[in-house]
């Protein structure tokens, strides 16, 4: 009888964990599948890191976020993961460079981060050492990132606006939080912080040293795109003109956005269509 009770209990715990992992996988997709942690732009995204991200401040290399205990995040706790994502701080208290977009991920609630961490733990561990970032003085001083965060980083989840269209609110959360659209599609100031008055207006020095287009709903951006166009684009990578995205955008679609529900993609489109 006791055996029966404990096996039932174990089975329900397993079911609960499976459900959390499934939720975490979805959160992972909302981030674009952590595509910056792929080994390169041409290889499948095993999350072992290594791809270069060229910026005006030097070249950063995506890190290993597989559950490998030595080289990945296998020895991290859920607390460590939440701190990394929402505060940009490593388990040893060091500051992460803001090429890792914790400035956006900080809007993801803790329960979702815990679920995402459980999902990442199910990925294949890969024993691959992280590459050293290639960044010149003074940007290579981690302490200076602390000052940067004090000046430019606003921590916290997006809770304001309870009486607004829930689809708009969901879209706002996805765009500004996990999908971190502003990080690539906005210009930055001389300190590398987003120019808040020109968010989503495109960037000359996007990730990998390439320009990123405006995604504002005007003539310079996606003003002529319908909601359906935005949804279809985020599912397939195809623009209304029949062109296909290249570079990192194609990867975040392939590795993440294409798996979002139609409702979530519509919410993203609804929010983007309000940006001027």
């Amino acid at each position, binding site marked *: 009888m006791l055996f029966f009770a404990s096996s039932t209990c174990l089975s329900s715990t397993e079911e609960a964990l499976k459900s959390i992992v499934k939720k975490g996988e979805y959160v992972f997709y909302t981030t674009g599948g952590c595509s910056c942690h792929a080994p390169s*732009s*041409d290889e499948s995204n095993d999350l072992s890191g290594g791809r270069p991200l060229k910026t005006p401040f030097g070249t950063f290399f995506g890190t290993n976020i597989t559950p490998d205990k030595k080289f990945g995040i296998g020895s991290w706790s859920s607390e460590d993961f939440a701190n990394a994502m929402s505060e940009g701080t490593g388990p040893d208290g060091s500051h992460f460079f803001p090429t890792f977009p914790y400035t956006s991920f900080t809007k993801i609630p803790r329960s979702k981060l815990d679920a995402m961490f459980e999902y990442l733990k199910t990925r294949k561990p890969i024993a691959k050492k992280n590459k050293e970032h290639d960044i010149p003085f003074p940007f290579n001083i981690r302490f200076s990132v602390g000052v940067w965060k004090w000046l430019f980083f606003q921590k916290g989840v997006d809770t304001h606006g309870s009486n607004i269209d829930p689809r708009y609110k969901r879209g706002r959360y996805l765009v500004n939080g996990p999908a971190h659209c502003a990080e690539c599609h906005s210009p930055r100031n001389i300190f590398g912080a987003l120019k808040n008055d020109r968010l989503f207006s495109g960037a000359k020095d*996007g990730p990998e040293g*390439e*320009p*990123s*287009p405006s995604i504002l709903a005007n003539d310079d951006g996606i003003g002529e795109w319908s909601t*359906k*166009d935005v*949804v*279809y684009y985020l599912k*397939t*990578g*195809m*623009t*209304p*003109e*029949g*062109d*296909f*995205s*290249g*570079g990192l*955008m*194609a*990867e975040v*679609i*392939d590795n993440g956005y294409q798996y979002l529900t139609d409702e979530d993609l519509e919410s993203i489109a609804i929010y983007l269509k309000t940006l001027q």
Partner: protein
Amino acid sequence: MKFLMLAVFLWSFNSFAKDDEKRQGMAEVREHYMSAVGGNMGTIGAIMKEGVKQPGMIANQAKALHEISSDILTVFEKGSDSKDDDAKAKIWTEWSKFEKKAEAFKKASANLVAVTSKTKDMKKIGAAVGKLGKTCKGCHKSYKEKD
């Protein structure tokens, strides 16, 4: 001797200028070719996303795409790299990889022709369209400069 050096210089300059002209010419052709592919893909995409039941139209667009897919390697012929278009230089340094992607595009367009000749089921056609789109995206991901 001075005249000989001047002649060699002028000849080299002329060769470089002609070579550059040829590259620019092919870049222009390439741009139009890709617009034609985009036109067909855009029409198919519009049919799919608007939920219009026009399998016959997709069949015609697929035939056109498959027909012109045989020119894909020609418009990227070796020695036609140019700064005037979105084609990344690594196309020509990784030519065999690029050839494989071009081959995938040809096969996926042939597959869409085959599927649309057998069925009018928009779900099945949609799956074949998805496969074709993946070959476009797969190539652009590696070999197209961002807009």
